[in-house]
């Protein structure tokens, strides 16, 4: 089968690999029809995630058609159209019993600090991902969700990670009516967090980034007030001025370890890797939120340590909530929002690219070329969907 194949930082090859096989009676093999490139895939692409092995296939946001099921699978059959949450979870461990599907304890032998994910290094379990023609889907009775007929593929694929993560970010911010919410990062997750904040009754939504075309998009799409941090002298000071000098009620970090905006953080977090990524957004979030406010973190950081003003968080009495999204907990609710017209996730897709051009799709997404916000890869065997793919190099 054709699949993405990591060769080193900034190097993705698309090549033939052996088809995946059933390795456990609870497995299914899914033929991929859409696979997104996630902002967090860029952390892999840039070589920042530990135990990322050459030959790895990325991709944790994908939907497809069930091709084959293991002997113990009861709820899926070949031909079912499924969206596959990025979490690989068992449904029965201590954490799954508590609906913390993003923290499953039974699917990742390599680390206890994180659950099992598709295509996200051996630190998250060593599973190949969905930027391929086929993918092995463990615990097929538990993870995948049969897509209702009225939900189109482009919406379904965004329900595997980006939209639930953005929504959960807003939910963890514990927004009350009239609250001012600041979202750091205008990538897909930040855009969805801004959009979702209104559902929770926010009074103001402010998005901070430095990429103008993304700020223009989120200004219309969310809708939101926007701040280009390159145009203000100090972000926290600017947010204080915008909020009567108190600070925002809630701040959401939808950036994670590759933030721009602070030379010190960039130098120590991204260039020399002395800390687990540049924690600029989290630094700003802690200093921009009001006393007794809420911080919600969905931006991805590495497993070692980061320089953040935790003393300020203590002295301000902040509540900090963070997690990988428990995708399946949100999917039924978000489908209802889509049906009612409250959310229109597919509008953020800017590029539909043949899988064969994944090297260039990654480069465009990473370099923010061509007003790229969200890229969907479409494999050759995606059926009729393949006709939607447009080359990014011709």
């Amino acid at each position, binding site marked *: 089968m054709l699949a993405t194949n990591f060769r080193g930082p900034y190097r993705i090859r698309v090549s033939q690999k052996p088809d995946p096989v059933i390795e456990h009676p609870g497995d299914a093999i899914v033929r991929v029809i859409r696979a997104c490139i996630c902002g967090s895939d860029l952390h892999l692409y840039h070589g920042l995630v530990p135990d990322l092995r050459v030959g790895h296939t990325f991709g944790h946001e994908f939907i497809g058609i069930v091709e084959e099921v293991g002997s113990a699978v009861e709820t899926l059959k070949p031909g079912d159209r499924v969206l596959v949450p990025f979490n690989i979870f068992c449904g029965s461990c201590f954490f799954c019993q508590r609906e913390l599907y993003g923290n499953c304890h039974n699917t990742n032998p390599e680390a206890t600090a994180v659950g099992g994910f598709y295509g996200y290094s051996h630190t998250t379990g060593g599973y190949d991902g969905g930027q391929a023609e086929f993918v092995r889907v463990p615990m097929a009775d*538990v993870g995948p969700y049969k897509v209702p007929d009225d939900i189109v593929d482009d919406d379904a694929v965004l329900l595997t990670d980006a939209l639930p993560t953005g929504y959960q970010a807003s939910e963890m911010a514990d927004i009350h009516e009239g609250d001012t919410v600041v979202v750091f990062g205008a990538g897909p997750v930040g855009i969805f967090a801004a959009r979702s904040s209104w559902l929770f009754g926010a009074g103001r939504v402010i998005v901070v980034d430095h990429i103008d075309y993304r700020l223009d998009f989120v200004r219309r799409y969310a809708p939101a007030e926007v701040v280009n941090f390159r145009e203000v002298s100090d972000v926290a000071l600017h947010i204080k001025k915008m909020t009567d000098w108190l600070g925002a009620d809630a701040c959401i970090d939808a950036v994670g370890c590759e933030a721009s905006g602070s030379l010190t953080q960039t130098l120590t977090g991204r260039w020399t890797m002395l800390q687990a990524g540049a924690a600029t957004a989290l630094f700003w979030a802690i200093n921009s939120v009001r006393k007794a406010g809420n911080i919600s973190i969905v931006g991805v950081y590495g497993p070692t340590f980061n320089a953040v003003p935790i003393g300020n968080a203590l002295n301000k009495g902040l509540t900090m909530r963070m997690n990988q999204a428990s995708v399946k907990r949100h999917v039924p*609710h978000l489908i209802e929002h889509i049906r009612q017209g409250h959310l229109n996730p597919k509008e953020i897709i800017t590029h539909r690219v043949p899988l064969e*051009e994944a090297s260039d799709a990654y480069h465009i997404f990473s370099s923010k070329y061509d007003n790229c916000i969200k890229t969907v890869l479409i494999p050759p065997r995606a059926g009729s969907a393949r006709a939607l793919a447009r080359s990014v190099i011709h």
Partner: protein
Amino acid sequence: MDTELARRDLAEQRRNPQHHGHVDYERQLDHDLNRHSPPREQLQRIPGWGSDLDHKNRPAIPMERMPPRFIHVPQGQPVQQAQTVEVFCSPERPGITPIFGTAQPPKWVSGAIRRLAYKLPENDVRHWLMLIAADRVNVVEGIVDDLRHGHVPNVLGEMGIRSELRHNPAGLVRKALVTAVVVGGVVALLKRRDRY
């Protein structure tokens, strides 16, 4: 002197009321109000505004919720997956998980470094530093493996040079020039050293 300082401070505050912790009493009195939030009627024009305002409508409230919803809950622990390749296990676990990935089993020097790394708990920073070191070694191994199989890796293609050419040709030329200057400089320096 103190009076003079106070007079100057007051004058400065009048000129630039946003400076130096000047307190705008009118705005401070407004702190317990809605801080510029538009009225509800206006907010309700945003599709879906407030539909999840009631905490009962929020899927994750409370964070830990039992029993689990929206999934087919299996009976008991999952059946143990058969181990066909070497899979590392965190020392912070009692043993391997029932389900695991089998992609890219460890091999060669990078595999040996990873094997050592997994002897240390996740709580030990050396565990992660060794894994990152192994990743860098693995990149070199990948090139060696390609050459061993008679495949010369198209490194520029893998880095997306075609899209760079299409979307940022000027940048590509600039990068090529900078690379040429740096490489040329290094070569010149080495040749100069050879002469002595």
